[in-house]
């Protein structure tokens, strides 16, 4: 039997083997390019960021857990709520004003803030006051580079971080679970510490809304609630800010709220924690394991009283 090969395909129309083998990659790239064209430029991948000596070498928590298990009460009090509802958060235009006891008060647009300093990847432990923890590869820059810009006055002792309130996108602010806007605070020297960063991304990509987009504080040696999300204002003051959680339950939440296995919370023992994705519990470390870097900030303080 004779087999005839049809000759109606010109050799020039035949895809070279090497390209043919890469067809899926081509599809993926073109789909990615089409998608990137649809989104505003600021939403494009932020890139891996510079590696940092402050990163730890533990395996980061799975992205689906980092973005699916969040405490962000403006978007609901269940930890699955923010992943569902925070997509509505209006991210543009976004401004951050830095005011109070500074020489040069400023209101900055998000585009300028993103260009302010080179982005670094900081793989940090995150310890929630509720007794669970994660390891998150943040992308951000030290808060100090923001604060230096406005030149704090000598009288400035504290920094107040005020989160955004968008009643039309945040279902949670209708209820009075907490006093809105969400307020957190640090002592100025804590805020200037190189470990304290403003995160604008995680896992090499733009920060998801449920994690506090577009600008979120990350203070890894303190309980998670100290790291305010979706920051709108930063105010330098000479007296200790009253934070939302301090107003809600002053006996349970102190201003410092450093991770401290020695000081128990009335609801949760702080001696151990469950890292998300693990079965056994781990011992909680003093200052969440960052004691070597931040211990000197608290020399001479009774951390049981000033918890």
């Amino acid at each position, binding site marked *: 039997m004779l087999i005839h090969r049809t000759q109606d395909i010109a050799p020039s129309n035949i895809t070279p083997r090497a390209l043919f083998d890469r067809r899926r990659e081509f599809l993926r790239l073109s789909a990615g390019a089409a998608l990137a064209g649809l989104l505003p430029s600021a939403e494009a991948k932020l890139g891996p960021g510079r590696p940092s000596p402050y990163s730890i070498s533990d395996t980061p928590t799975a992205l689906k857990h980092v973005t*699916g298990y969040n405490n962000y*009460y403006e978007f609901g009090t269940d930890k*699955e709520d923010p992943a569902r509802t925070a997509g509505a958060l209006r991210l543009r235009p976004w401004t951050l004003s830095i005011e109070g006891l500074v020489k040069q008060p400023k209101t900055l647009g998000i585009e300028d803030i993103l260009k302010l300093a080179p982005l670094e990847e900081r793989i940090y432990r995150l310890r929630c006051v509720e007794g669970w923890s994660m390891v998150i590869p943040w992308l951000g820059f030290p808060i100090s580079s923001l604060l230096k810009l406005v030149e704090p006055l000598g009288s400035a002792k504290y920094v107040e971080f005020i989160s955004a309130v968008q009643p039309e996108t945040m279902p949670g602010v209708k*209820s009075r679970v907490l006093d809105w806007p969400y307020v957190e605070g640090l002592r100025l020297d804590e805020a200037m510490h190189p470990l304290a960063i403003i995160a604008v991304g995680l896992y090499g990509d733009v920060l998801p809304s449920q994690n506090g987009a577009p600008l979120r504080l990350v203070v890894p040696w303190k309980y998670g609630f100290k790291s305010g999300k979706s920051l709108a204002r930063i105010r330098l003051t000479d007296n200790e800010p009253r934070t939302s959680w301090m107003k809600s*339950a002053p006996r349970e939440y102190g201003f410092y709220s450093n991770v401290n296995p020695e000081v*128990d919370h009335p*609801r949760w023992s702080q*001696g151990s924690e469950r890292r998300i994705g693990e*079965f056994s519990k781990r011992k909680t470390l003093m200052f969440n394991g960052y004691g070597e870097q931040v211990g000197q900030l608290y020399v001479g303080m009774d951390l049981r009283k000033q918890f």
Partner: protein
Amino acid sequence: MNPALLKPPLLLACLAPLAYYAWGLQTDTLGANPIEAVTRGLGDWALNFLLITLSVTPLRKLSGWTWLGRLRRMLGLFVFFYATLHLSTYLWFDQFFDWVAITKDIWKRPFITVGMLCFVLLLPLAATSNGFALRKLGGRRWQALHRSVYLIGMLAVLHYSWMVKADISRPLLYAALLGILLGLRGWWRVQERDRQLSGTYLPKRRGRIIPIVVRK
């Protein structure tokens, strides 16, 4: 309605929450913190069954379906069943049977104290849920003992509300439902007392009876 026919499907239905969490653990669909989800879920169901058990008597009275009463024991035992599982998850997955830490916890953390108290109070009720214990105790004493379930209900809601961090809307919902179930009983008790005092149950006699009326 024959309650004997209803019991097997009811038993299966009562096991459904347990099956849900077992399946969820197996397939890893309980979210980022499955152990917390199971612990809380089992606690929720202990409280749900407590409210379901407490609604048997009001439902029976309102509907006239006396056979409902025959299902109450099984429902009540499921309160104990889920409470035991709830406690076990805490002892095992939260504390890994570290009895020193557990003792400290019960002592230091009010919501654990109250939760543990609930469990201890459930023990005699579960132990006397059989016919033998009922006969041995006698109806009156048995009933007096089992009325402690009202207190257990209040303590369980307190345990829940002290556990949550800020949003107490769900504990409040449970408190409201419990309030209705206990309030109905209180209201019926007052009415019954009035009926007895006003002579409703006295045999009809000739002549005049001057009833003792105690009114608010």
